[in-house]
C-alpha cells in the first residue's frame, strides 16, 4: 500500500466520519431534515 493510498484513504475516512456526524446530529436534532422552513434550526 503506497503513501497516496493511505493519504487518500484517510481523507475519505475523515469525510465519511464528518458526514456521519452531520447526519446523526441532524436526525437527533428533532429528527429534522435541516430544511430550515420551520425555524427550529435557528431557534436558540
Amino acid at each position, binding site marked *: *500500500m*503506497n503513501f*497516496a*493510498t493511505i493519504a*487518500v*484513504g484517510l481523507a*475519505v475516512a475523515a*469525510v*465519511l466520519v*464528518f*458526514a*456521519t456526524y*452531520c*447526519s446523526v446530529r*441532524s*436526525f437527533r436534532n*428533532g*429528527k*429534522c*431534515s*435541516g*430544511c*430550515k*422552513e*420551520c*425555524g*427550529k434550526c*435557528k*431557534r*436558540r
Partner: protein
Amino acid sequence: MSRVIALAGNPNCGKTTLFNRLTGSSQKVGNWPGVTIDRKEGRIKAIGAVLVDLPGIYSLSPYSPEEVVSRDFLLDSRPDAIINIVDATNMERNLYLTSQILDMGIPTVIALNMMDTVRRDGTVIDTEKLSKALGCRVVGISALKGEGMDELLEAISSAGETPKPVRLSDPLEKSISEISGKLEGKVPDGHLRWYSVKALERDVLAIERIGESWEEISEIIDDLEKAEDDESDSLVASERYSSISDVVVSSVKTKRASGGYTTSDRIDRIVTNRWLGLPIFAGVMFLVYYISITTVGGWGTDWVNDVFFGEWTIPGAAAWLESMAVDPVLTAFIVDGLIAGVGAVLGFLPQMLVLFVLLVILEDSGYMARIAFVMDRVFRRFGLSGKSFIPILIGTGCGVPGIMASRTIESERDRRITAMTTTFIPCSAKLPIIALIAGALFGGSALVALASYFIGVLAILLSGIILKKWPSLSGTPSEFIMELPPYHIPGVATVIRSTFEKGWAFVRKAGTFILLACGIIWFLSAFDWSMSMVGDINDSMLADIGNAITWIFVPLGWGDEWQFSVGTITGLLAKENVVGTFGVLFGFSEVAESGDEIWPIIGAMLTPIAGFSFLAFNLLCAPCFAAIGAMRRELGTWKATGAAVLYQCLLAYAVSMVIFQIGSLLMYGTFGIWTVAAFATVALAAYILVSKEPFARARQKISEAAA
C-alpha cells in the same frame, strides 16, 4: 440579562419579515397566513434584546395549537415589552388583537406595517393621534423595505410604561371591576385586567386557570347578560370593535372610495372563479414543471450531468487518483460509489432550483393562498377543508415542515388526517425520481411531473374520504376562514434567499447523508458475503438482499429487477437515495467513459407503465425517516404513526398495482392473477368510498372497548 421582546400580530401581517429585518435572520416568510407555527428567537444586536417571533393570532382566545403557543408565551413568560405589528391596510381587524394585548399590562409598541402600500393607496394615517388614542407608541414602518426601523428600535428601547387598556362601556367596566375583586391575589397582578375580561368572555382556557373562583364570577356574568340581554362575549367583542372604529375614524383618512375593485379583486374574480380556478391552477402547475424540468431546468441538468460530472469531475477524479497510483479498490469506491451516487443526485439540482424559484414566486405573490381557497371547495366534498392545503403547499418544499404546518388546523381529527397524508405531495427530494423516470421513459415530458403532483392531491382527497369513515377520525371538516392577502410582486431578495436556502439544504444533505448511503450501497454492491470483490454485481451482497425482497414488488411491474427494490428501500431513509442508489448500481460514473447514460439503461429495464408504477409507489409510500419522526410528533404515539405508515404503504402498493396491472391489460393485453387482484382492489376502494359505514365492525369494537 437581555430584555425579551415579543413580536405579536395577526397572521400574514409581516411579523417574520420584521423579525428577519431586526435580527438579521433569514427565517421562512410567505404571503399566506400560518407560515410561523412555533416561536422563534433572535437577537436585536442594536439594542441588546432578544426578539421572540410568535405565530400569528387574531385574538387571545386561541383555537389551534400554534395560537396557544402565542398566548401562553405572552401570559406565562411575560416578556419585557411587546411589538404589536399591525397591518395598516386592515386596521380594524388588526386592532382587535391590539385591544386585547393592551389589557395584559405589558409595555407595548405598535408597529404599523405596510405603510408604503397605505401611502400608495392615498390613505393618510395620523400616527400621533393613533398613539394618543391607544395610549402607547405607534411607529409607521415597512418591514419589506426596511422603512422606520430606527424609530422602531428607539421606541422599543424606551418602552417601559404600562399601557392603558381600551375602555369598554360602563356596565361592562363595572362587571370587570367586580370580577377583578374576586380574582385579586389568585392571578398574577399584571394580568388581573386581562383575566377579568377573559373570564367575562367565558374564555375556556382562562376559566381553567381561574379554578375555584369561577362559580362566583359566573353569577356576575349572568347578571350582566340578563341586564344587557346579550351574551357577554358578544358584548365585549362589540364594545371592542366600537372603540376601534372610533380610533380609526379619528386617525385615518382614506382617499379611495369604498366599494371599488382593487387590482387584487379583479385578479381574484378570475383565478378563484368556481369553474376557472382549478383549470388555471392545473395550467400554472404544468407551466411550473414544464419550465423547471423540460426547458430551463432540463438544460441545466443536462449540462451538470454531461459536462460537469461526465467530462470534468468523474474522468478528472479517476485520472488524478490513477496518476497517484491509489489502490484501484479505493479509486472505485470514490469514483463509482461516492462521486457517482452523489453526482446522480446533484445532477438534478438545476431543475430543483428553477422549481424552487417558481414556487417561491407563486407563494410570495399571494397566488397560492388563493389556491387554498379554491381547494377548500374541492376538499370539503372529501371531508377535509382548505386548511389542509396549507401543509400541502409547504410540503412541496419538504414534508417535515408540511407535516408540522398541520398544527394550524383546529379540529384534531382533520389535523391527524392532514399529518398522515401531507407527504403524498411530491417534495423536493422526490423531484429527482420524477425527473429520472420522465427522462428515462417519457422523453422528459413535464406531464409526468404534473401527473405526479395531481396523483398526490388525488391520494390526499381519497384518503380524506377513507380516513373520515374510520371511527376515530370521523367528523365534519373544520371551518375554513382565510384572509386573502393582496397580490404583490415578489421581492427579489426573498426569492433568492428562499431558493438558496432550499438548494443549500439539498446540497448539504447530498454531501452528508446521501454520500454516506452511497458509500454503503457501493460497498454492498462491490463485495460478496466472503468479502471478495465481485466481477458481476449480481453476485454481490446487495443483489442477494435485493433478490430476497424483490418478489414483493413483482405485481407492481418492477420486481423482476432487484435494483429497483433496493432503490425503494434506501429511499425510506431519504428519497434522494433512490436516485443516488441508481447512480451507484447503474454506473453513473461510466457515462463519460462509455458514452452510455443511466437513462437508457433504466429505459431498457422497465416498460413505461412499470416505470410509472415505480414512480407512484415511491411518491406515496412511507416518507423518509425525518418525515416519519415529524408525523410521530404530530400524531402523538408510535402506534398511530405505525398505523399511518402502514396505511401509506398499503395505499402506495394498491395504486401502483392498479396502474401496472390495468395499464398493462389496456396497453399490451396482459392478463393474469394479479390483474384480477387489481380489479378486486378497485372494487374494494369503490366500496369504501361509496359505503356509508365501511368500517362498522371497527366502530362496534371501539364502542365496546369504550364501554
